């Protein structure tokens, strides 16, 4: 039993000197030693690491396993990143290009703005336009509410969208007035094409067309709309309509005394001076006016008094 334990330790390279003494005294130990020495001379196959790895790499199964793993670990997140960049780029481009610029003139004064191609728009009080700054040279399109005077630089078709119709030009000066359902286009230079009520009308310089609610043709005699110079101008308009304009502008009350208010008036009045305005309207018609302290004005015919 003692020898067996010693032998077991010896086989595990853990024999103590005492164990060796026991073993060496044991006659059969020589046989065991002989088996041991002889066994240790066994010829082992040498495993070549380099060629072994290479042989593994050449196995179809090996490459298959590798290919299956690669896309999972590396390529998928990369694809997602690229996709995300494209989505962001596309999204922001759409956002920027569709974002319109909105401009509204102050209630009390006119405002002139210059477009990217040096076209000019003069907005009348409280008029509002919106247009797309991005890609302007390729898409000259303005949406208008109110009244504005356009001086368009030469280039692609310039379009003004209004609720009552569209006005297109190539390069010209024109005035567009919209108010409720009214659309009045006056051409000062070049040629203006108006598409309203399903009809296409060409407006030549010196013409002023009222398209809605009904088609009316008027002549203009100024080089620019009169409101640009702080004036109101009239061509063959009944006197009472002119007087109503003065009331509106100066916030005064006008009364008439033994006057024919159906008299036709052609001319203009200034917006800056009430006395001057009254004079320019009354003098050509041989009328007079009197003013009291309460902003009440009376217009009369001096001959009939």
């Amino acid at each position, binding site marked *: 039993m003692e020898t067996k334990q010693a032998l077991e330790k010896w086989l595990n390279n853990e024999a103590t000197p005492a164990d060796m003494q026991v073993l060496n005294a044991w006659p059969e130990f020589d046989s065991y030693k002989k*088996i*041991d020495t002889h066994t240790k001379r*066994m010829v082992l196959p040498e495993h070549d690491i380099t060629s072994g790895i290479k042989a593994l790499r050449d196995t179809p199964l090996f490459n298959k396993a590798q290919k299956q793993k690669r896309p999972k670990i590396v390529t998928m997140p990369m694809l997602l990143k690229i996709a995300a960049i494209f989505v962001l780029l596309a999204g922001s481009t759409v956002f920027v290009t569709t974002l319109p610029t909105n401009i509204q003139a102050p209630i009390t004064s006119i405002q002139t703005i210059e477009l990217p191609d040096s076209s000019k728009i003069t907005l009348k009080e409280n008029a509002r336009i919106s247009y797309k700054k991005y890609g302007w040279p390729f898409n000259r399109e303005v949406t208008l509410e109110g009244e504005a005077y356009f001086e368009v630089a030469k280039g692609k078709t310039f379009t003004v969208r209004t609720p009552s119709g569209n006005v297109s030009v190539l390069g010209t000066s024109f005035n567009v007035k919209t108010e409720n359902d009214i659309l009045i286009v006056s051409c000062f230079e070049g040629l203006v094409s108006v598409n309203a009520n399903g009809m296409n009308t060409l407006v030549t310089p010196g013409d002023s067309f009222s398209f809605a609610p009904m088609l009316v043709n008027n002549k203009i005699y100024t080089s620019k709309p009169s409101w640009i110079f702080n004036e109101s101008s009239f061509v063959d308009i009944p006197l009472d309509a002119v007087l109503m304009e003065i009331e509106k502008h100066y916030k005064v009350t006008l009364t008439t005394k033994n006057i024919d208010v159906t008299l036709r008036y052609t001319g203009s009045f200034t917006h800056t001076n009430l006395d001057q305005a009254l004079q320019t309207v009354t003098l050509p018609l041989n009328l007079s006016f009197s003013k009291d302290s309460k902003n009440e004005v009376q217009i009369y015919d001096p001959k009939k008094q």
Partner: protein
Amino acid sequence: MEKQTNICQEQAFNKVYKAQAQSLRNFMFFKTKDTDASYDLVQEAFLKLWQNCAKVTPEKAKSYLFTTANNLFLNTVAHKKVQFKFTQGVKKSQDNNSPEFLLEEKEFGQKLQKALDSLTQLQRTAFLLSRVEGKKYREIAAIYNISEKAAGKRVLDALEKLRETIDNL
């Protein structure tokens, strides 16, 4: 963020191969007694490791390889009859290289060969792992997933059986 070392990376896999291929080859050789068969089994075991690289940590790689190789061996059908080879013992003294001595050596080698054949596959492999590879009982126990004591007994039993067989030849 640092990536955890994974055998799926080529470098890590090659490192495992370098460290384990030879000892795995010996293990398979003790079982099969066949140079070519043992080579195939080793390569197959590493292929399995590569295919399952995501599930096996570098620490577990060794035991995975030995278990896999052992299973692969059990799946193979019995091979052609092959025998171990031993080198000639080199002795310092001239006397020991005498014809008598060489003859005796050769005879003993043949006897040992037969004795090894008479051992069960488990006994033989355990014994050779211990003697040729110089593995401790603890390491053998780990390979077979048995206790250290059982491993020691397996080696000792093999040695005693070898001696008995050789004496009776």
